[in-house]
């Protein structure tokens, strides 16, 4: 019940966030110099065609009215036509977003498992060689930008060792799975094409690892420091003093108390990954939304830019809600405070 209330409240708040975001997007797209109709049609289009388009786009009307039309269309799922692909922006997104989401989710999985795992390992073996290696590794992970990691991984594992395919989502000749979720791994599993699943997974590894490296290192560092801080807390000593077995004291009891900061940072990092993915997508020729967005920016493809920003905004909102849920599930102090303010 409390959960439903929380979701309803956050959903309601999100509407306003999105509304604000839409106004921002709309204004940014309109304050840019130049005639949008002319830009869209090109210099050689006859004037009457341009005038027609101006009318269609309601460009002569006041900005507020224009926003009304734009919002109405957007709510109906019409975000306009992309100048670059000459297709409906929503169709583009339907094609490109799943590729990015699959990549980002997979890299999120690597971040969570690897980061928390290394953090625990590091804290357990604090100040030993294990800890030192992990710390050096995570310092490097934090400072090396994901595109450098991407290139290094591509060269080493893609070209020199040739363990993983280096570009695209599938190898040539591998049948594409039918489109259900847009995630090749999931769709091929659903369709029973296990060879395709394997191939898609192999294609995911390098870009996902490249993308995960930074936040993974950050998670490992945070998990380590929180755990070793908490290890000197009285409740750990008290658990031991009362005969609670060590595996529970430093497992269950320490872990739950220590993962709270990790989860919040993970959420922030995860949402940012989607927008930071473009260089990695570029390097691995990954047909994702991030690359699409950057291309749109370079070409002043306003409809596409607006759509991508909107998608990123929505992702941030969803991830934030999930993180708050996760942190609330771990930490009664936050959960109960939330309930009290109802």
């Amino acid at each position, binding site marked *: 019940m409390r959960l439903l209330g929380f979701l309803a409240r956050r959903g309601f708040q999100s509407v306003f966030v999105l509304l604000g975001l839409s106004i921002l997007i709309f204004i940014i797209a309109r304050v840019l110099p130049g005639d949008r109709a002319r830009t869209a049609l090109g210099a050689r289009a006859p004037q009457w065609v341009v005038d027609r388009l101006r009318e269609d786009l309601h460009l002569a009307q006041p900005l507020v009215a224009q926003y009304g039309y734009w919002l109405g269309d957007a709510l109906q799922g019409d975000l306009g036509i992309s100048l670059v692909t000459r297709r409906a922006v929503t169709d583009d997104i339907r094609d490109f977003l799943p590729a990015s989401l699959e990549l980002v989710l997979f890299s999120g999985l690597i971040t969570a498992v690897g980061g928390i795992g290394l953090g625990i390992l590091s804290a357990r073996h604090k100040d030993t060689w294990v800890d030192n290696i992990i710390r050096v590794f995570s310092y490097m992970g934090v400072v090396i930008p994901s595109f450098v990691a991407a290139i290094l991984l591509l060269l080493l594992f893609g070209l020199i060792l040739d363990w993983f395919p280096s570009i695209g989502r599938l190898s040539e000749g591998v049948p594409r799975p039918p489109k259900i979720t847009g995630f090749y791994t999931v769709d091929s599993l659903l369709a029973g094409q296990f060879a395709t699943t394997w191939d898609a997974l192999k294609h995911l590894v390098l870009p996902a690892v490249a993308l995960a490296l930074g936040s993974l290192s950050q998670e490992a560092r945070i998990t380590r420091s929180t755990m070793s801080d908490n290890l*000197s807390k009285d*409740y750990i000593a*008290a*658990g*031991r*003093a*009362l005969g609670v077995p*060590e595996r*529970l004291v430093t497992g269950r009891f320490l872990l739950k108390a220590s993962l709270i900061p990790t989860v919040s940072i993970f959420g922030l990092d995860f949402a940012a990954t989607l927008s930071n993915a473009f260089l990695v997508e570029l390097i691995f020729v990954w047909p994702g939304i991030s690359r699409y967005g950057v291309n749109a920016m370079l070409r002043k493809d306003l409809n596409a830019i607006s759509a991508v920003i909107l998608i990123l905004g929505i992702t941030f909102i969803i991830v934030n809600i999930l993180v708050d849920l996760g942190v609330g599930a771990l930490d*009664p102090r936050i959960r109960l405070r939330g309930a009290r303010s109802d």
Partner: protein
Amino acid sequence: MTEPLLDIKDLYVQFEVYGGRLEVLDGVNFRVGTGEKIGLVGETGCGKTTTMKAILRILPEPPAVIPRGEITFKGRDVLKMNSAELSKVRGRGISMIFQDPTAALNPVFTIGQQFEPVIRYSSPQNRRLSRREIREKAIVSLQEVALADPERLLDSYPLQLSGGMRQRVCIGMALATHPELLIADEPGTSLDVTIQDQVLRLLRELVEEKHTSVILITHTLGVVRETADRVYVMYAGNMVEVAPTPKLFANPLHPYTQGLMQAVPKLTGGGVAHGIPGRIPDYLSPPSGCRFHTRCPHVMDICRREKPPFFSVDGGHQVACFLYDKSPEARRDEAVAA
């Protein structure tokens, strides 16, 4: 005395820090007999809690190091135990109530979740109990410490309880293992005086009822007087005096104990409390000889050179101070000095 329950001999504990080692415990000798109630007094930072944590082996090692000493519990040296043996001592052998109940409870687990493993691992029989049965036992423990509505308490988080309730929960947990020896580290210090008084009264009743041996750490001499059979006085990592409670209060021998007694404000007689000048020495480079010599009003040459051993004065009254050295050599020295 018969075989003591707990016997600490010549215990040293040091902490590795940047720039050296803190020599905190400096040859501590300490005994608790079966069924005995021991008071342990001394100012903050003198090593009381460190000694207690060493007994349970819950000092963080590193940075803590125990280079020397023996901690014998029921005839076996805790310092030589492996983790399986240790886990039999912790909880059912010795359990502990911590100074600050808020810090001693894990903030992200309910009281019930924290009670469960404590009861489950306190005896081989309990390990086979169902959750429901463990819960029943936890409820009994909470009722013992006079907490109302234990069912609801078990499902509450520490932050939903008051300080006094948390302290009671901690006492309940520490007694739920039916320990032979209970260490109570300044219970209630973080609470207001009336609650503290209630908590101590409750604790006294419970250990009386269960015939548990107790080590009660406190700053408050009054509490010791009411509770303890014998009192140890600790200063800067050394036990400086031990005596049966009435003897210690009637005739404090160590200059530090005397200072401690004078530092207590009296309600009658209009006496003003006198503090002991100076403060506890730096453990990085503690004073040579008797660690109290820097603050002692009766300091002699030998105090700066040598560490005083325990001198027996009479019937269980011992004091680590050269003023009470009645050996032939000491008397000769006195004669020479005269």
